[in-house]
């Protein structure tokens, strides 16, 4: 039975794992999209990312697993949360009801069908879709390891750094140096842009480039109707 | 590689100048401009040495050649190369650009734009002499045009707009048929290419009677306007009179040579039969240019117009030399006489550039002081400005072809060379030499000799800047006049090859 089980797992283990993580991701995704409170939506992003990380693990890409969790879950989601908290601090709990649900659903459905339909076209169908056998073995030392695999088809032993992470680093700095550098540039540009957009200099208010904190309030009644009286002393938003 | 650097130097200067501020960095702009042109000049000297050391693969072959695919699908390549014919012209261009930039340090209006346009002009000119690909050739030909328009249009004399527009449109009208002709050559090649060397070897226009004639006359029009040849010369006096001194120096010394260079580089080697067929018309037009130019010069009262018409006269000799090479009727013409004519024509380009460049500098000298160019208003300047009078008379005598100075050497070779091809026309054009002597001496007599008019009693003599600008040219005139062997030795090889090429293909017995 154990033998049978291990064969079964051997055979379909990855499929089961895939199904589990898929379900997790999709469920969280639906939640993100439909949650009333935006904070809930943001928080439900976490299980979604974890699911996706799992999928990366199934696809034998430990680096992605790590980065996914690190950046998305740790970075971006937290950033979103901060933003939401900032806003909620000023405007109270933000709810985001859905509108145009029907047209949105229709369009989303249509795109899904279009993509899935595209998958059926013969350019994808005859693709040899079975995963090439992986030998989970540490390249340098050659013995079994859980974190490193060695794909005999494409890599030859020795000439490149052994582990996936090391190889990613190696690739980043050799064959993909230009994209790597460009992304760093974009990153810097984005950060600077973000700061420039939200900064508030002395004298701008006087110069009329920005509405003083007091006027900001009265332009549009906030969705939840309560305009909290913001006193002068508050720190900058 | 060397040639690409040569082209790049003025551009680098140009870019630096563009970055400098208009008001604050005037001195730096001038410094950069001089630096760039000096670097270009020094580099052209280095190029000559490299040219000398590189073993030549046969007389017709280009040296310092650099070929790189540019737009391969259209057969356009960045093909630059140099041979005996273009080396002297390149050195002349860089030298004169340097001198004119040194001379135009006294320009105060819009210095930045002036220097920028000048460096761009220098690039355009160098580009034409260096390029061996029609696409490149035409590109630099047009690049050379625009800065001149602005230099005349902005810093010129009273009627500058008219002169600038006339110059620009006239030359543009000329270059349009040339473009069509280039395309005709492009398509008539077995596998379409713009490469001039391939076109020259393949001689695409061999059989095509009417088409060859049309292409020949299209190129002829384009270059004749630039030379300028007789009916197309009316833009030259206006352009010269209105251009600032340095502008008219470059215009006279180099831009005219683009036309004549075109004749020797494009028309002769690439269309031997057509040029042989129409050589007689070229000779007649050249004769008219010579005599007509000299007579008009005699009738002028404006100093610059006089020298402009003298340029028409001298360039007529060049075209006579070119026509003599391709003359079919020459009963006695042999390879030696035809090559002598062509040697004379090419040397005339260089010497005319030097002499007329010096003459225009000198006219600039007197114009800056007296603010008039009317010959009749002057009188007896030799007493007041002895050094200036000395150099001016030296240049005038060089221009009218006094032996021992550069003017004589080239005119002598053109006349003796083309005598056997066109006996009567050469004799008539020798009369041009007399008329040239007449109007130059008459001008000298009215301006320098005779009693000093009290109005000019306080004219200062030449200052340091002007001497630096003209002295090297005078030395060059003397050296070429006394011992032209090194210069002609450089030119003789490729020119013999061209004459051989033309005689062989055009079947001139």
């Amino acid at each position, binding site marked *: 039975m154990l033998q049978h089980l291990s064969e079964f797992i051997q055979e379909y283990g990855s499929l089961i794992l895939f199904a589990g993580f898929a379900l997790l991701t999709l469920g969280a995704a639906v939640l993100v999209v439909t949650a009333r409170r935006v904070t809930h939506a943001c928080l439900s992003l976490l299980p979604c990312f974890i699911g996706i990380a799992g999928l990366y693990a199934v696809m034998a890409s430990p680096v992605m697993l790590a980065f996914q969790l690190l950046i998305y879950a740790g970075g971006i989601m937290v950033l979103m949360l901060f933003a939401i908290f900032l806003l909620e601090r000023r405007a109270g709990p933000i709810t985001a009801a859905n509108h145009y649900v029907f047209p949105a659903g229709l369009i989303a459905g249509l795109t899904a069908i279009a993509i899935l339909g595209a998958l059926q076209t013969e350019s994808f169908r005859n693709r040899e879709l079975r995963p090439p056998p992986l030998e989970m073995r540490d390249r340098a030392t050659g013995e079994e390891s859980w974190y490193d695999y060695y794909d005999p088809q494409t890599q030859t032993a020795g000439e490149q750094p052994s582990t996936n992470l090391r190889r990613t680093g190696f690739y980043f700095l050799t064959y993909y140096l230009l994209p790597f550098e460009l992304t760093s540039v974009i990153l810097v540009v984005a950060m600077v842009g973000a700061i420039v957009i939200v900064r508030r200099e002395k004298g701008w208010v006087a110069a009329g480039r920005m509405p003083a904190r007091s006027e900001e309030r009265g332009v549009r009644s906030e969705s939840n109707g309560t305009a909290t009286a913001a006193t002068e002393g508050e720190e900058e938003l | 590689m060397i040639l690409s650097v040569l082209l790049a130097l003025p551009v680098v200067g140009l870019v630096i100048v563009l970055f400098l501020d208009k008001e604050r960095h005037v001195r730096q702009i001038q410094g950069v401009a001089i630096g760039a042109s000096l670097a270009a000049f020094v580099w052209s000297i280095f190029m000559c040495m490299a040219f000398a050391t590189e073993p030549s693969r046969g007389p017709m072959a280009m040296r310092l050649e650099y070929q790189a695919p540019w737009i391969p699908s259209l057969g356009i390549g960045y093909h630059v190369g140099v041979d005996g014919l273009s080396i002297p012209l390149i050195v002349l261009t860089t030298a004169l650009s340097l001198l004119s930039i040194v001379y135009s340090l006294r320009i105060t209006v819009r210095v930045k734009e002036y220097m920028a346009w000048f460096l761009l002009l220098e690039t355009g000119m160098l580009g034409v002499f260096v390029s061996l690909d029609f696409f490149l050739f035409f590109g630099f030909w047009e690049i050379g045009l625009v800065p001149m328009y602005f230099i005349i249009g902005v810093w010129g004399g009273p009627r500058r707009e008219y002169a600038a527009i006339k110059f620009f449109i006239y030359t543009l009208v000329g270059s349009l048929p040339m473009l069509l002709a280039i395309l005709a050559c492009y398509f008539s090649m077995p596998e379409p290419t713009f490469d001039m060397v391939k076109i020259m070897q393949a001689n695409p226009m061999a059989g095509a009677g009417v088409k060859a004639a049309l292409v020949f006359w299209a190129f002829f029009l384009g270059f004749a306007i630039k030379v300028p040849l007789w009916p197309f010369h009316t833009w030259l006096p206006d352009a010269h009179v209105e251009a600032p001194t340095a502008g008219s120096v470059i215009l006279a010394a180099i831009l005219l040579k683009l036309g004549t260079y075109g004749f020797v580089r494009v028309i002769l080697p690439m269309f031997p039969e057509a040029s042989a067929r129409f050589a007689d018309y070229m000779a007649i037009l050249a004769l008219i240019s010579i005599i*007509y130019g000299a007579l008009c010069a005699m009738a002028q009262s404006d100093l610059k117009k006089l020298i402009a018409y003298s340029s028409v006269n001298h360039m007529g000799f060049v075209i006579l030399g070119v026509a003599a090479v391709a003359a079919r009727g020459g009963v*006695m013409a042999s390879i*030696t006489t035809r090559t002598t004519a062509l040697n004379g024509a090419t040397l005339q380009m260089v010497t005319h550039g030097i002499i007329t460049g010096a003459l225009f500098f000198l006219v600039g000298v007197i114009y800056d002081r007296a603010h008039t160019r009317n010959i009749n208003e002057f009188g007896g300047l030799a007493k007041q400005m002895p050094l200036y009078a000395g150099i001016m008379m030296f240049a005038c005598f060089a221009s009218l072809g006094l032996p021992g100075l550069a003017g004589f050497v080239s005119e002598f070779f053109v006349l003796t060379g083309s005598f056997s091809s066109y006996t009567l026309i*050469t004799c008539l054009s020798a009369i041009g030499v007399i008329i040239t002597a007449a109007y130059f*001496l*008459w001008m000298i007599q009215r301006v320098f000799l005779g009693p000093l008019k009290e109005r000019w009693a306080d004219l200062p003599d030449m200052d340091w800047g002007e001497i630096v600008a003209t002295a090297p040219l005078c030395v060059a005139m003397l050296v070429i006049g006394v011992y032209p062997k090194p210069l002609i030795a450089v030119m003789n090889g490729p020119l013999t090859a061209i004459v051989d090429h033309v*005689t062989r293909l055009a079947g001139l017995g």
Partner: protein
Amino acid sequence: MVSPFFENLAWLIPLLPLLACGVLIGWGVKLHRKIGDRVALIAVAGIAIPCVIAWGILASRVSQTFGAPHEAGTHGESARETIEGPEPFEMAVEWAPLGPLSPAVLSPVTRDLSPAFDGRLKVGLRIDNLTAAMLAMITLVAMLIQIYSIGYMHGDERYPRFFAYMSLFCFSMLLLVLAGSFLVLFAGWELVGLCSYLLIGFWFQKPSAASAAKKAFIVNRVGDFGFLIGIMIIFFHVPSLDIRAALAAAGTAAFPPHWVAIAGACLFTGAIGKSAQFPLHVWLPDAMEGPTPVSALIHAATMVAAGVYMVARISTLYVVPQVAELEVFAGLTSLEIVRYIGIITAVLAGTIGIAQNDIKRVLAYSTVSQLGFMMFALGMGMAGWVAGVFHLLTHAFFKALLFLGSGSVIHGCGGEQDMTKMGGLRKAMPTTFWTFLMGTLALTGVPLFWAGFWSKDEIMAASWAVDQPVFWLGEFAAFCTALYMGRLMFLTFAGDHPRDHSIHAHESPKVMTVPLTILAVFSVGLGWLGMPGDHNLMHHFLGSSAPQIAEHAEHAVAGGAINIAGIEFEIVPLCVSVMAAGLGWLLAAVIWGWKLVDVPRLKQAVPPIAWAHNVLKNKYFFDEIYHATFVRGTLALAAGCGLFDKYVVDGIVNLVGWATTRVFAGLARLADTWIVDGLVNLIAEAQKLAGRFAAMLQTGRVQHYIAFSALIAALIAAAIYVLGGHWI
């Protein structure tokens, strides 16, 4: 063989004056301030050393000619044989490569077309006996004149500049004489023209001097035009332009006779311009505007002689057998052209000389006349060749003497040039008077002592043998020479006091009189060298440079064969020439010496004399004729061209410009408003409609945009699916 020591220094001869000129132009003014007139010593040194070298060369060549084993010396030798003088000394450097240097360079097809010329145009010196003689003469005369001009030009503010130009002139004249190739000859030729321009126009403040200089240069240039065409013809046949090669090839297949004749005629036109022969003689009298030493050196001794020297040098072209019969111009062979131009000039100038009052003008016309004589002598082919050259040498000395004498007279009379105002200078300026007298006697050909007699007599003898009528014209010219020279002597020196009392004549300083005396000695002594007789030294020496007839050519030569022993001594020409000279002197004495004839009264009495005198005084109105025809004609033509260019050619261009702006623009505007515009408006309206619909999409809401794009993407995917994905 004497070691060619001096000949190796030959290249120094032209170089030193050039060096002196360079120094004087560069630092002349500064030196003048520092060491005053001694700055002229640079120029004098610059000509003295070449003088020594030249005389050295002359000595070595003389010794070679006469010292050589006397194989040809036996008396009574047949006239045919030419004297083999010492080999000419040659030195050449490559000047410019022309054409294919070796046939290998050419493609096989054109290889056979290229002539034998190896493409190296050489430029160099060549010395033979004729050159040696000329060199000696030029350097000596130039040196004496430069010494003389130290005194004459004293006090002139552009003193160093004068000597710079004089040295430049010496350089170019020596270059011309030493020339081995036509190129150098032409270069020297034009440079000499330049120096005469600079020196005539030395006092350029004077407008007359400036225009005289210009006139001189342009007239020379007209002559050079012919010279250039001659060179062109020669260049084709003998591309190396080497004189000896050209002369050797003359008449052979390389240089066919008819081309030789034409080349000869063209080169002679150059000589006409330079030596002021008949049609182009107008510039020489005006050249007197320059300082007197200039007139002496350039317009008497050397430059004008260059034309004669050149004709002498290339006279082979005239006497080559086949060419001698070929009519070239108006039925005359090139040799006859030279002869008749020569004699016409001699007679013409001689007659004009009589009516001139300016002392320098008289001498100028006398020079033109004597040059006519020389050309006339050369024009007689072999017979007159040596005589012509001999007369050239003697004339240089005594004419220089006369000019310098007139210079010291003018200097003495404070710049006065009009003879009628002078008089009785005999007592005031004794040395000038005596040297002047020597020169005049030599010029007029008074027998026995003076050089002029021997050289002119030889020309007359040669012409007597060759061409009788021309002989009598020659004698008439000699008579005129004697007449005007006598008039000059009596007007200036005779009488006891100057007619114009304001003149206080005083003797010129020693630095001027010493050269006069040396020249006087030469103008006497040189004649003896040429005395006829079997050992005629001059004939013997110059014979070797005479035109070498190609050996195989037989001797049906106009004017008889060359006569080595000099012309047989004929009594008739001798008497006639002596009588002519005597008659001239007698008439001069009668009219101006003893004043037996009152000229004004004579003129009323015999109107033709008055008319003739007026014509002569105005120089046959040549100047006026030339001015009216050529000068004003060219100016009118030039003005015509100028206007034509301005209004017609430029007019067409502007017309085209105007047409495009006015006419076509108008048409374009019409077409534009109706057709094109209409169409455009139509499209505009349709555009607006579409625009309004499109605006609907522009809701400003981000979500709408994403929705639309996703929708479109889905639709495209559907389209691909439906159309079966192959068309992507």
